[in-house]
């Protein structure tokens, strides 16, 4: 591969690099030029490497893929957590070592997560790793990745280093604890995305809360402790109910099959009795709705965001909210498809009225920019939940893509709000006016991100919302409501423009009246380098969404077909009193790979098989 071939093959990346280097104005430092150039080149490389073709290249890649190293996922989870422990041993005064170490760990995490892209994400589990943890209880360390969780893990490893890099600019006290919290948070989040054992999932689900509680509570704003406690209690209350439902589910499974297991694959075969199913569905879903946040239980989000430091706020918005939606898609729709499909029309109504329209309207009335952006994430996630409730392949793909989009655009928005907060230490919208003259670059970046979050085509927001709206109309789950739901969701597009442009005009346009705004410095090198990857990602997703969609399509199709078949069976066969066990062949073998096998050679209790025969698994999952 002589250098000339290299140049010839990757000329767009080199060109983009040079262009990136030229962008900053004359007096910019070489560090900024080099940084921007590098980021531009890497992004173009990313696009070329995953260029969306008709699957031809993917097949070629599969041929020479290095196979699935089983310990990759363990590395992704364990590295940050071990790093967090190691940070504690670094003396408090050596700030540069602390920061360097954090960057190292997060950097390795990001590079390792890029390896996930080499494997074509066919339906079923990849990089699966199973190890017994508490055999007596049937708890196993079972982690695996599929199309759905792939991009969320990549979002985590992509956003956390940026948040860290940006927040080291503004966090001045207790750097060591901040690094500890950051690394633990990354480990917890990735673990939660990859866990397939309900117990393991619950452990990571709770583990995540602690560092975020620390971040809001220690480095937050004025009454940060109250907001941190409110955040913690809200999520904890939800997840405690989920734990009860998990235990009940495991207990029923033990009654049916005779052996304990917390494994998601095994438990998804259990069909509880009618009202137990609904209760457990609500127990699970409430925990996830609090996290999303859905309408009635969302009031913790604005307080948490207003008090959280910039870095914490970025991670909270970019990744932690996605756990609620991802977990609803994986566990609520996976374990209780019956009630999920019965209630999908009503829940979609809540997602639209309570989420999209309510979030947008309340955001319009906010005076604090961060509170406004917080309510805007309620609106955006309303779209995501609508995509999930519509339960069509398009809608679900749109939902997962919108999760990634929201992570990128709202993460960038919070970084931008952090920029002015560091300068003026206030977030009141009325304090600013006519900033565009004083901080032109900042105004341009803010405008781009605003149009991304409003969903102007060509940016990432549009693709996600477009898929969700199309999916809603095509959905037969929503039945007669599909039309009115589509109209409601599309109306959300208008309101999104209303409140975002309101804040842009209030802050940037109009005369420069406030004397304090006269001499605000424009974006510093750190801020612009932190924002550059996000802004580029906005355009990459906007113009080449099929890079992302092709890799999640098959897993989503598998999940959708299974959801359709099993919900049909669950509604049909759930009777008043007894729980039942679906035969194994209602699930596709790819899905059941890694299910705990019955070690006991003894024939399972006669009763279990007898009742299933009557069921007869005629509902096959189309591969």
């Amino acid at each position, binding site marked *: 591969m002589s250098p000339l071939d290299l140049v010839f093959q990757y000329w767009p990346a080199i060109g983009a690099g040079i262009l990136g280097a030229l962008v900053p104005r004359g007096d910019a430092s070489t560090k900024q030029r080099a940084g921007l150039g590098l980021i531009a080149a890497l992004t173009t490389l990313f696009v070329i490497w995953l260029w969306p073709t008709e699957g031809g290249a993917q097949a070629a890649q599969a041929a020479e893929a290095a196979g699935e190293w089983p310990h990759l996922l363990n590395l992704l989870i364990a590295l940050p957590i071990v790093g967090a422990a190691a940070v504690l041993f670094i003396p408090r005064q050596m700030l540069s070592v602390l920061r360097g170490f954090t960057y190292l760990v997060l950097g390795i995490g990001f590079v390792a997560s890029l390896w996930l892209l080499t494997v074509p994400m066919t339906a079923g589990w990849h990089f699966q790793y199973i190890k017994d943890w508490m055999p007596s209880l049937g708890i196993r360390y079972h982690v695996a990745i599929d199309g759905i969780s792939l991009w969320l893990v990549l979002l985590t490893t992509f956003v956390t280093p940026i948040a860290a890099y940006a927040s080291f600019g503004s966090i001045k006290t207790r750097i060591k604890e901040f690094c500890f919290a950051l690394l633990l948070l990354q480990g917890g989040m990735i673990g939660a995305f990859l866990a397939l054992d309900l117990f393991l999932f619950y452990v990571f689900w709770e583990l995540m809360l602690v560092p975020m509680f620390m971040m809001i509570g220690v480095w937050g704003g004025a009454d940060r402790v109250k907001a941190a406690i409110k955040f913690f209690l809200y999520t904890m209350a939800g997840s405690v109910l989920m734990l009860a439902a998990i235990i009940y589910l495991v207990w029923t499974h033990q009654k049916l099959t005779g052996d304990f297991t917390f494994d998601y694959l095994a438990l998804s075969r259990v069909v509880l009795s009618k009202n137990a199913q609904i209760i457990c569905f609500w127990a699970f879903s409430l925990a996830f709705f609090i996290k999303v946040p859905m309408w009635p239980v969302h009031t913790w989000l604005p307080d948490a965001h207003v008090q959280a430091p910039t870095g914490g706020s970025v991670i909270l918005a970019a990744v932690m909210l996605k756990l609620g939606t991802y977990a609803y898609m994986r566990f609520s729709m996976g374990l209780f498809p019956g009630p999920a499909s019965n209630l999908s029309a009503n829940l979609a109504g809540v997602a639209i009225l309570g989420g999209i329209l309510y979030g947008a309207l*309340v955001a319009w009335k906010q005076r604090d920019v961060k509170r406004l952006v917080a309510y805007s994430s309620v609106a955006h996630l309303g779209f995501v939940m609508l995509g999930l409730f519509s339960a069509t392949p398009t809608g679900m793909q749109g939902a997962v893509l919108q999760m990634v989009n929201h992570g990128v655009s709202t993460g960038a928005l919070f970084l931008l709000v952090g920029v002015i907060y560091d300068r003026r230490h206030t977030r009141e919208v009325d304090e600013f006016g006519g900033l565009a003259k004083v901080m032109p670059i900042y105004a341009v970046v803010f405008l781009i991100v605003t149009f991304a979050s409003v969903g102007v085509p060509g940016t990432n927001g549009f693709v996600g919302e477009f898929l969700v709206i199309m999916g809603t109309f095509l959905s037969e789950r929503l039945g007669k409501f599909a039309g009115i739901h589509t109209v409601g969701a599309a109306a959300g597009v208008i309101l999104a423009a209303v409140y975002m442009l309101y804040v842009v005009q209030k802050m940037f346009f109009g005369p420069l009246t406030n004397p304090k705004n006269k001499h605000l410095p424009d974006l510093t090198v750190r801020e612009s380098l932190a924002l550059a990857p996000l802004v580029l990602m906005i355009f990459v997703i906007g113009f080449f969404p099929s890079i992302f969609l092709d890799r999640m399509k098959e897993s989503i199709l598998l999940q959708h077909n299974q959801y359709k078949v099993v919900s049909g069976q669950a509604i049909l066969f759930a009777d008043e009193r007894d729980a039942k066990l679906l035969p194994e062949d209602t699930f596709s073998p790819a899905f059941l790979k890694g299910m705990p096998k019955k070690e006991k050679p003894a024939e399972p209790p006669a009763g279990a098989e007898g009742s299933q025969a009557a069921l007869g698994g005629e509902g096959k999952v189309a591969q």
Partner: protein
Amino acid sequence: MEALKAQFPATNFTLLAVVLALPLIGAFVNGVFGKRLGKAGVRLMALSALGGSFIAALATFLLLPKGEGGGTLAWTAWRWFSLNGRMGQTIPIDVAFSVDAMSATMMLVVTGVGFLIHLYSSEYMIKDPGYHRFFAYLNLFCFAMLTLVMADNMAVLFVGWEGVGLCSYLLIGFWFGEEKNATAGKKAFIVNRIGDFGLLVAMAILLYYTGSLRFAEINANARNLLDPVTIWPFGNLPIESQWDAANPSANALYKAIVHLFLPEKGIQVYASTLVGLAMFLGAAGKSAQIPLYVWLPDAMAGPTPVSALIHAATMVTAGVYLVARTSAVFLMSPAAMATVAVLGCATAIFAASIGLFQHDLKKVLAYSTVSQLGFMFIGVGVGAFAAGFFHVFTHAFFKACLFLGAGSVIHAMHARIHDTDKSQDIRNMGGLKKYMPITRWTFLLSCFAIAGAPPLAGFWSKDEILWRAFSTKIVAPEVGRLEPLWTWPSWLGQTIYWVGVVAATMTAFYMFRAYFLTFHGEFRGWKVVAGWKEPKHAHGHDDHGHDDHHDHHDDGTPLEGPKPHESPLAMTLPLMVLAAFAVFAGFLMAEPIHFEPLGHILAPVFTRAHDAVVLRGEGVEKLMWPMMGPGVAAFLAGTGAAMVVYLNKGGAPEEAFKKAAPGLYKLIYDKWRIDELYDAVVVGMVDALADIFTTADKWLIDGVLAKLTAAIVAFFGTVLRTFQTGRVQVYGAAMAIGLAGVGFFLVRPHADATVDDSKLRSAGEVVISAAPGPGYEYRWEGTGTEQKDFGPLREVRINVNPGETKDVKLHVRNAFAQEATHSFAITRPGRGFPSSAAPVPVVPGGVVPAGGGSIPAKDIPGLINPRGAQ
């Protein structure tokens, strides 16, 4: 030509990439490196980008395959994303562009007029600090407009659609220093967004019914849209009969009220009408028709060339282009086409009426644009797609020329009057024909064109539309056994024709009113002083921006100033070119004289329209020439009236009318107070809803969920705190009391027993076994065998014959010689009275009954207390 054709195959026509890429590169270069390039560099970049794109567009137009099936040149960039259709099939959405005759002409207009306007504004904006930013936005706008025009599927069209809205937001709010401009920009974007909402819904419906978003396939299987959709009552709402069946016992009053709301029969509408209406909402948003036209007059806050390019030539015509492009869908529903035509007509007459009394030159032109757009929508509404499109074509030229003329006048006025509103006010102008000959003649020619003077472009296109409205009717597609589609009433075509004629007269009147007030009479701007020099103290012209200007000359002394100068060549050249086109463009489709080269090119594009729209009656076509009379009469009447009022009498009659009907005058001058109506109704309602939600969010949801629970917990906390006194003895005492209680309980004996009456019903036999205890002794009574003293016997068997009640007493004595007794009444249900067994505590059977993998469900729910109300 053949070499070019060979080099660019029809299916992979990369020349389209060149047409698109050049403005994009121009925008990027100007935007990012603009400041460093300097004004000359930026100007060169922008003009070369547009020039190159125009040449490529011209080449594309020439290379259009003239085949009978309407040859198209297509180019696919990359797979954008793919959707899953209704039957599970994947629908690929590619970034694909295809050009047929219509879009080729549109491309020529966009790049041609765009190039001229770029040339013009390179001079007009020469003193503006944001020079590079302006050209970046202008180039980006051209890119977005080209994407819109050349899109192959509706998704890419939507990209162009919103891109154009975005650029108009940026350009209207270009001088963002002033609050007014920024608000106008925001208003334009939001109103466009409401239109885009309509387009999104239309796309969803099209995807559902026709299974694809590509125009070719949409037009091909447009017939699938003929499927009735119940829009009211939606969801699970019952219709009347269902409701009555559901709750028959409702009383009369309640039933009456419900019947008020519920329809007898669900309202059904054809999907094609729904799509048509949704798309018209989108078009109305973009092309400023009746419901959503309010943003266009405010958009005059932007620089004049912007108004010329965006609000005259290109963007506003996007709506007409969309309707023409999806003509097959509209043809499926005459109701939708009727709405388009009627609203178009209403807009024409309404906007014209407002234009009559406006004083701001650009506002007059803005309202004339809205009214001319009304004409175009009449064209496409009545099925004359080619005519509507031709009016778009001609309107682009003469309206751009008018706007640029106005720009050059304003440019001249800026020499002394810097306030934006005053410099555009025609009352300050007058008599400029002496000073600005070229602008005056080009303005005059365009006025003739727009007013519909016979040989000029305006006459041919407007007359064609009105003639088509008058003479044709639409044949509704047959729908078999379904309810037949709504068809046009016969009189509708004629009424539209006559209303159009009235609007045409008004157009002629206000256009010439503006012309005479601006160019004739004596100059009212300032006292012209020969050789007037710029006083030293006056501030320099560095900041041409309009934000923090204030005019300190209004302190009563009459303003002096130099002679208004004619605009430099860079501005007058485009005027002349456009004026020339305004004169000769008409002959491209002059149907009455059967010389219509453009008509022939467009024919293949609208083949479906050709056979769906037929002449009203047999002999109607003979009326073509006579029906031209009213059109020409309208022109003569309008121009004459304007000449009489403003040229001869110098505007006196207008003053007279103002005094005669001040209320009406004020009403029309205030644009029929539509803006205030919208603010009060639409914006007000949304604002109120937002307030309700915010307060509910703060007090109701946050209050109840978070603060109330916290308060309850705090209350219990304080209650329990009073027990902790902090003194050791108190705790010791509590312990002692506890000790005493436990001791008392342990010492007392407890006489408990379990009664096993499983065989009571069958064999009448009951086993009572007493609960064991430390040092317990038992004595039974009533079991037949008398037992005086206490013994270890714990279990007793009693036989009860049917219908009999037996009373058994149990005495228990513990080590401390304490005694306790417990009595049981055992009755066996026999003939006679039902059994009333004493309340017997039954310990739930713990063991799982064998058989059946299922567990008794009765104790499963008991295990987890159902939290949620079901």
